[in-house]
């Protein structure tokens, strides 16, 4: 049976996903609070996998929590920390517990995280992980051995529409779709005219695209992303707009900007939905959606 998220994607409605960020440690109260707050407001919640290579509570545990609390999880899986045995095993576990949506990512370098001396794995890459999921669905593992009990996933991947140069990214994007990606959640986009151009190209492929929206919390945060986050470019006029906010009002300005962008994406029917990343401010997703008229 298709997952609830897959049904939402296929329904033609404007799909909204957001993130639940696992905690550093076993105190899950904050995460539970965000899940309870958002699970009925969005179509699915991504659970990040050691985001930025910082060791945390596992995405699998977080996705299970979303499921147990009645939400619809999207399990994020990076290729950074597990080889093909561990990735397949985790997929079997996910399937056995009703976690049926997976976002396949390469994963940041361990050098960017908090365990800089760790051995990076990258046994598979993101397109190979998508292919591995399709392989498991065929009833066999990657080594060709029969599975006792099958799996069914809605598998997705990411793309960076503002990457420079863009062409190598697009070739990888097409490989992910050929490998079997059904949905794409994009890296944050701020230049919507550029995103429209990307979508004119992406529309030719049989894949649902959710535009990534990262909540701006201050002008310095926007400048920090421009300097440090690959493929994210906050245009100067948005930085100026953030800087023009009255003292203490930057977050509200960021919510207003995110809401405005989502509204435009929806009104101009640019893509199939949005993926809202309110990093560290997950409770604000509700305000962003309200500002977007959702």
């Amino acid at each position, binding site marked *: 049976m298709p997952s609830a998220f897959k049904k939402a994607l296929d329904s033609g409605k404007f799909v909204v996903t957001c993130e639940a960020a696992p905690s550093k440690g076993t105190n899950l109260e904050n995460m539970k609070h965000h899940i309870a707050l958002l699970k009925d407001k969005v179509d699915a919640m991504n659970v990040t996998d050691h985001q930025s290579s910082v060791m945390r509570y596992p995405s699998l545990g977080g996705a299970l929590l979303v499921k147990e609390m009645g939400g619809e999880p999207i399990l994020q899986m990076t290729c950074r920390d597990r080889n093909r045995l561990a990735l397949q095993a985790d997929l079997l576990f996910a399937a056995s517990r009703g976690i049926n949506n997976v976002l396949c990512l390469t*994963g940041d*370098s361990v050098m*960017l995280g908090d365990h800089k001396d760790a051995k990076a794995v990258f046994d598979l*890459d993101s397109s190979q992980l998508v292919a591995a999921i399709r392989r498991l669905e065929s009833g066999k593992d990657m080594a060709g051995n029969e599975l006792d009990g099958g799996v069914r996933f809605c598998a997705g991947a990411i793309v960076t529409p503002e*990457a420079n*140069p863009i062409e*190598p990214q697009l*070739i990888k994007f097409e*490989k992910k779709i050929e490998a079997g990606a059904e949905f794409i959640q994009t890296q944050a986009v701020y230049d919507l005219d550029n995103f429209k151009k990307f979508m004119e190209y992406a529309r030719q492929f049989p894949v649902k695209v959710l535009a990534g929206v990262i909540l701006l919390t201050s002008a310095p945060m926007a400048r920090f992303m421009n300097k440090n986050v690959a493929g994210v470019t906050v245009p100067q006029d948005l930085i100026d707009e953030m800087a023009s906010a009255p003292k203490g009002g930057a977050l509200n300005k960021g919510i207003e900007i995110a809401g405005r962008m989502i509204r435009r994406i929806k009104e101009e029917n640019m893509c199939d939905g949005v993926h809202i990343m309110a990093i560290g401010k997950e409770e604000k997703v509700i305000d962003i959606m309200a500002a977007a008229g959702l």
Partner: protein
Amino acid sequence: MIRSITQQKSIEEIERLTDGMGRIFIIGCGTCVTLTRTGGAPEVAAMQQQLTEKGKVVTGTTVVPVACDNLTMDMLKEFQNPLKQADGLLIMTCAFGVQTIARQISKMVIPALDTLFVGKETGAGEFNEVCLQCGTCIIGETGGICPVTTCHKGLVNGPCGGTNNGKCEIDSNKDCAWTLIYNRLKDLGRLDAMRKYQKPRNHLGEPTPGKFKIPASA
């Protein structure tokens, strides 16, 4: 020419590794480490001075022509006495040299260098790793640029999302392998090669530790 690229360990680590050894013999090498200025004659002399200042007795020093060559043992024969007097050998060569010497002299060997990679000199004083010796070469499909070596993550199907302006997410001075490959294949009119899905790699093309014997002729 391929070179073994090395970097000198900190003097603190060398002190720790030589703790309890009052008498030290120092061996450098005239090949790769001379080129990288990590274990040639000037570096050996500087190390001798440093160790002497730390209160060690340096029983002798030499710079052998090619430490990883089996002839190294013959070169060391003339130093029998100072070698015998030493509590340990501080070896300022790459790990190939250290292991060549360790196999034949019954003394504790202390590497003074860390061996970083096998690479080549790509500019004055600049060295780059070009082959990881993975045993499953795919550069026939990538325009001769190795993504297994040149991409920080060893990705074989194109760039990750961390690439920015043609550079790598771990260092804005490092080229993104997949930007290089894309540009090369584009120039060659062979972008179709980049579009080809590469299956998961065989990570055991040659299981570690590598071992090879020339097959007996039939």
